[in-house]
C-alpha cells in the first residue's frame, strides 16, 4: 500500500483529484518528461505512466497510435522506468502509477519489475489485463504488497456486486472505476450511470474511487466529479492533444494550459 497515494487522497486539496494518463516516452523520452512536468505543475495529482504493448486490448485509436509510435521509436519499459525516476526527482508529492499490460511484466519478470519501479519512485501499478484470476496478478500483488506499493484494480460497469466485493478487497491506493464498457477514448459515460455505480462501490468500501474513460473536456470532468468519486482520470483527451500538436514547439506549455482548464474546475 503506497503511503504517497494514501496522503494524496487524505488531503482535501484538490477536492477531486485529476489522474492523468501519459504514454511513457511519447512522443519521445525528452518531450514526454517535459509534458509530465507541466502536468504536475498544473495540478495533476496522479500521473499514470503507460508502457506500450503491441496487442493492447483496451486502447482506442488515439492511445493505440501513441503506443505504436513508442514501439517504433524503440523505447522500452526500462526507458519508461527511467522516466519515472526523473519525474520522481522533479516532484516528490505526485502519485505515479505504472500502467499497461501483463505481457511486458511477465517477461521483465515481475519481481524485478516491482523492485525497479519501487527504486524509480513509482507508487503503484495498474495492469489492464490482469484480473485476480490470473496467476501473474497474484504474484504481482504479493510483490507490490511486500514492497509497500499499491495494485490499482479496475472495476467495470459489467462487474456485479459479488465480484466487486472480491475486487475491492484486493485493491489498494484507489479503485479505477471504468465508467463505460469499451476501449479508451471512445464512448462517453452517462452521469447518472456513473453516480449509481459510485454509490454501489461506496456501499462496499471506503477506498478512493477514480472514474475514467471517455472524459474529454473540463465539462465532462466536472460532471463526473459530481458523482461522488474522489478522482477523475483523463487519458485519451490529453494524448490526443499531444498527438494533434506534435509540431507545436511550445507543446508542453500549451498542454499545461489545457490541463489547467481541467484542474481549475476540480478544485
Amino acid at each position, binding site marked *: 500500500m503506497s503511503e504517497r497515494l494514501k496522503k494524496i487522497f487524505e488531503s482535501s486539496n484538490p477536492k477531486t483529484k485529476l489522474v492523468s494518463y501519459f504514454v511513457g516516452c511519447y512522443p519521445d523520452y525528452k518531450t514526454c518528461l517535459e509534458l509530465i512536468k507541466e502536468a504536475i505543475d498544473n495540478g495533476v495529482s496522479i500521473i499514470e505512466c503507460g508502457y506500450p504493448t503491441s496487442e493492447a486490448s483496451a486502447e482506442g485509436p488515439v492511445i493505440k497510435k501513441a503506443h505504436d509510435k513508442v514501439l517504433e521509436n524503440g523505447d522500452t519499459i526500462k526507458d519508461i522506468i527511467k522516466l519515472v525516476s526523473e519525474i520522481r526527482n522533479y516532484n516528490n508529492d505526485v502519485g505515479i502509477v505504472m500502467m499497461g499490460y501483463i*505481457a511486458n511484466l511477465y517477461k521483465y519478470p515481475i519481481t524485478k519489475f516491482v523492485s525497479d519501479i519501487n527504486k524509480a519512485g513509482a507508487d503503484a501499478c495498474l495492469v489492464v489485463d*490482469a484480473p485476480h484470476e490470473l496467476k501473474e496478478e497474484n504474484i504481482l500483488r504479493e510483490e507490490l504488497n511486500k514492497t509497500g506499493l499499491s495494485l490499482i484494480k479496475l472495476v467495470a*460497469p459489467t462487474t456485479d456486486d459479488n465480484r466487486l466485493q472480491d475486487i475491492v478487497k484486493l485493491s489498494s491506493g484507489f479503485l479505477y472505476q471504468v465508467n463505460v464498457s469499451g476501449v479508451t477514448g471512445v464512448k462517453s459515460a452517462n452521469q447518472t450511470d456513473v453516480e449509481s455505480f459510485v454509490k454501489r462501490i461506496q456501499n462496499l468500501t471506503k477506498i478512493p474511487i477514480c472514474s475514467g474513460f471517455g472524459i474529454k473536456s473540463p465539462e465532462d470532468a466536472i460532471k463526473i466529479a459530481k458523482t461522488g468519486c474522489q478522482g477523475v482520470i483523463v487519458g485519451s483527451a490529453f494524448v490526443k492533444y499531444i498527438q494533434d500538436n506534435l509540431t507545436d514547439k511550445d507543446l508542453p506549455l500549451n498542454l499545461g494550459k489545457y490541463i489547467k482548464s481541467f484542474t481549475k474546475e476540480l478544485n
Partner: protein
Amino acid sequence: MKKNSLKTGPDDLGYYGEGEKAMGGMAVGETLMPALHELNDGFEDAIKDKDFLDEFAYYCKHYIGRPSPLYFAENLTKKLGGAKILFKQEHLNHTGSHKITNSLFQILLAKRMGKSHLICESGAGQHYSATAAVAAKFNMPLVGVMGDIDVARVNQNIIKAKHYGAKLKTVPGTLKEAITDAIKTWTTNPEYAYICGSVVSSSPFPKIVAFAQSIIGREIREQSMSQEGKIPDMICGCVGGGSNFAGAIYEFLDEPSVTKIGVEAHETAALTNGTPGIMQGMKTYMLQTDDGAKSLGGMSLGAGITYFSVGPLHSYLKDQGAVKYSSATDKEMLEAYKIIAQTEGICSALEPMAAAAEIIFRQAKDKPKDYIICLSLCGRGEKDLDTIQEHIGKDFE
C-alpha cells in the same frame, strides 16, 4: 476423467498444467471478466444438457454434413512408398473447413444463453464465413473483424459472409490484429457473444473450442477402427491457433502410441521458435520481443496459420512432451498442394498443406506400409486459388 489424464482439461481458472508452467488462464480486462465467467458457466451447464448436445449433433449431421469421411489417399501413399496415408476430409464440411463445427457449437451455446448479437475475428476468413452462415441460419446479426491483408487475399469468404448478412470490420494487419480488435469490439459490447475461432484467447475459449472440435478425433477413431481395424499411428495437422489439430488429437491424448505432430507456418512457428508469454488473453508460447512489448512473426501464405502465438493447450502438450510440433515453409506448402491436387484430385486450402508437407517430406517415406498416418485436411482451396496461381500457376501449365 481419470487423474493424470491429458484430457482433464484446464482448471477452474483456465490453466492447463500446474505452477510456473501452467498455460492458458484469463488475461483480459475487467469489462469482459463477467462475460467470460458467464460463458464458462453457460458452457459447463450446456454440456450436461443432453438436448443441447443432441441439437449440436443434429446440425453437425444435417447442416455441416458430418461425419467428414476418413479417406485412404491411395495415390499419395503409393507415390511416397511408405506409410498408409488417410485424409480426414474436413474440407467437405459446409463452408469448406473445420471451422463451422466450432461456429455451430458456439452459436447454439450463445442462443441457449440468450445472446442476440455475435462478434468474431478471422484470419483466413473461413471462421468468418462459417460463423456468418450459422448466424444467418439462427437469425443473429454478426460483426466480423479481419486484417486488411487477409481481406485482400481471401476475398471470397468476405463476399459469402456479406451475402449471409454479416458485417465486416477491417483493421490493418492479419489475424493477430483481428483478434485484438475483436476483443476491443467485445469489450465495447460485452452483452454480445464472442465466437472465438480457435483454441486461443482467454479461458474458457480454448476449452470450448477444443470441446466442439474434438468430434473430429472421435470420428477418426470410429472410422479408423471400422475401416482399418486400428487407430492411426500418427495424426498430423496444421496449427494456427490450433483448433483443427486439437480437435483431431484430443480423443487420443492419453494414447502415447499415437504420435501427434502439429505443424505451424515457418514464419510464425510459436512452438518451435517462441517463448512463453502472456498476450491476447492467454499464457502460451509466442513470438515476441524479449521485453514482451511486441508480438513478432512474418507472413505465411497460409492466412489461417499466420499467427504469432498458439492455443495454450498446445503449449502445455509441448511442455509435457506429449505432442511434437514442427513447421513448414511456403515453398513446402505449395509443393504439397501440387502433389495432393495431382495425385488425389483435391484442391486443398494452403493451411493443411503445412501438415501435408511434414508428412510428404519428413514422415511417410521410411515408415512401414501398415503404419497409418492421418492428415487433418481441414480446408478447401477455393479461397487460396488466387494466391496459388500467383505463386505456382506456371507449374501447372
